[in-house]
């Protein structure tokens, strides 16, 4: 069976699944709107979690939270299911497809066969929609792909039961209840306030304080860890920032698009000005990535190089702090 489902590419997988599932159910919500209302933007340093042998920084909220917050703030109810066995997971998926209900799945990327080999790491928070089954193959709408694709039963089972951090355990989700009309205004304000609170939080590992912390660490890494490890860590920061799905500049551009759309809905010109400001901050993140790449490209950087990119991050932290304080007052 094949459900009549419109696939639309998005920058980020979770926003994209939500936006596409909402459209299927008759509600047109853009990707940036999902991201903004769901308070997707963040900066956080997770020193206790290592991925690919390097500490993790993240530019976005934890997997799943964007949809949860979006749903709560707009009055949508989501059903989420996880499974102890692959058989149960498959049976529930098939039952939903029979009922003409496309579902979101959380999957691991390592065994995702249509991704290029180089991009297949043990990352377990990718999202896709399954919208049918034809000749024994599941029909897949992966939001980061231009076109729809398909996976065999075995291939889908492997990615649904990937192991490691954030193991999906067959995680399947779909909206089950909707409001009569989507009230965006209040939801937007809530989403913005939450992001401002997170980004200016008085704790060391979240928001602008975490950016400053990373800046300090970058200065220390070459002496403390050696140039090779310092470069490896720096490379991982850039990869997290510019990974497929960020829309560029560590999600700052998607957020700019959200503020622009929000300024029209709320008839608030200040948000339009702030959209321009976050876009410029996004450009600074891009400059940081360019200069960081010069360091790890040569593998023989001077201490000056590390200090320079650390300075860039310190500047970004100052600008983001001022930005989120203004944004908080604007709504």
């Amino acid at each position, binding site marked *: 069976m094949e459900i009549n489902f419109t696939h639309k590419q998005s920058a980020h997988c979770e926003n994209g699944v939500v936006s596409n599932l909402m459209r299927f159910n008759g509600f047109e919500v853009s990707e940036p709107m999902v991201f903004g209302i769901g308070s997707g933007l963040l900066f956080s340093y997770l020193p206790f979690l290592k991925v690919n042998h390097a500490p993790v920084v993240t530019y976005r909220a934890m997997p799943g939270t964007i949809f949860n917050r979006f749903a709560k703030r707009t009055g949508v109810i989501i059903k989420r299911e996880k499974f102890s066995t692959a058989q149960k997971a498959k049976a529930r998926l098939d039952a939903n497809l029979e009922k003409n209900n496309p579902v979101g799945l959380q999957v691991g990327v390592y065994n995702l066969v249509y991704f290029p080999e*180089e991009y297949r790491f043990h990352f377990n928070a990718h999202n896709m929609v399954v919208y049918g089954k034809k000749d024994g193959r599941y029909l897949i709408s992966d939001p980061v792909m231009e076109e729809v694709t398909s996976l065999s039963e075995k291939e889908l089972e492997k990615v649904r039961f990937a192991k490691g951090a954030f193991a999906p355990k067959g995680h399947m989700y779909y909206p089950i209840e909707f409001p009569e009309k989507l009230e965006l205004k209040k939801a937007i304000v809530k989403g913005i306030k939450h992001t401002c609170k997170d980004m200016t939080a008085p704790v060391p590992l979240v928001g602008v304080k975490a950016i400053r912390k990373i800046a300090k660490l970058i200065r220390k890494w070459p002496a403390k860890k050696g140039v090779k490890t310092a470069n490896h860590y720096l490379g991982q920061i850039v990869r997290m920032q510019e990974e497929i799905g960020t829309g560029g500049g560590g999600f700052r551009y998607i957020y700019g698009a959200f503020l622009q759309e929000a300024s029209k809905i709320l008839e608030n010109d200040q948000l339009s000005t702030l959209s321009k400001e976050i876009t410029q901050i996004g450009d600074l993140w891009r400059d940081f990535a360019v200069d960081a*790449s010069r360091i790890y490209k040569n593998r023989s950087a001077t201490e000056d190089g590390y200090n320079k990119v650390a300075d860039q991050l310190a500047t970004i932290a100052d600008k983001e702090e001022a930005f989120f304080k203004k944004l908080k007052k604007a709504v």
Partner: protein
Amino acid sequence: MKKNEVPQDKSNLESANIKEMYYAVDENGEYTTELSTGWDPKTIALDNAIKDIEERTEIAKQKVLNNTTSPIEYYMELHKMDVGILASYVGMWAWRVKRHFKPSVFKKLNKKTLQKYADIFDITVEQLKDIHK
């Protein structure tokens, strides 16, 4: 970023026919989206990460040949895993997996445990025992 500044550098995304989506501003200051074939600073970071894994795999291989570790460590690196991820796949504590890196312990592993590892690495038990097969 302006729409016409969205990078169109060469990358290995092309091999899988993927283009990634950027949010950028058009000439009227309106946000829109644009597809990109890749961006060099990111490609370099990714290439370095891959090289790092290749180095780790090569070191593990030499250790297997010198009989200072078991093939499990080699296959773990080959599959871009770390001990935590591998432990999660085999459903054992990390310390037990690490213990299986010891050649003397590895030699005594029963068929069932070997098969578990082999299945995860998608190889035969013979290949698990001898990395040249």
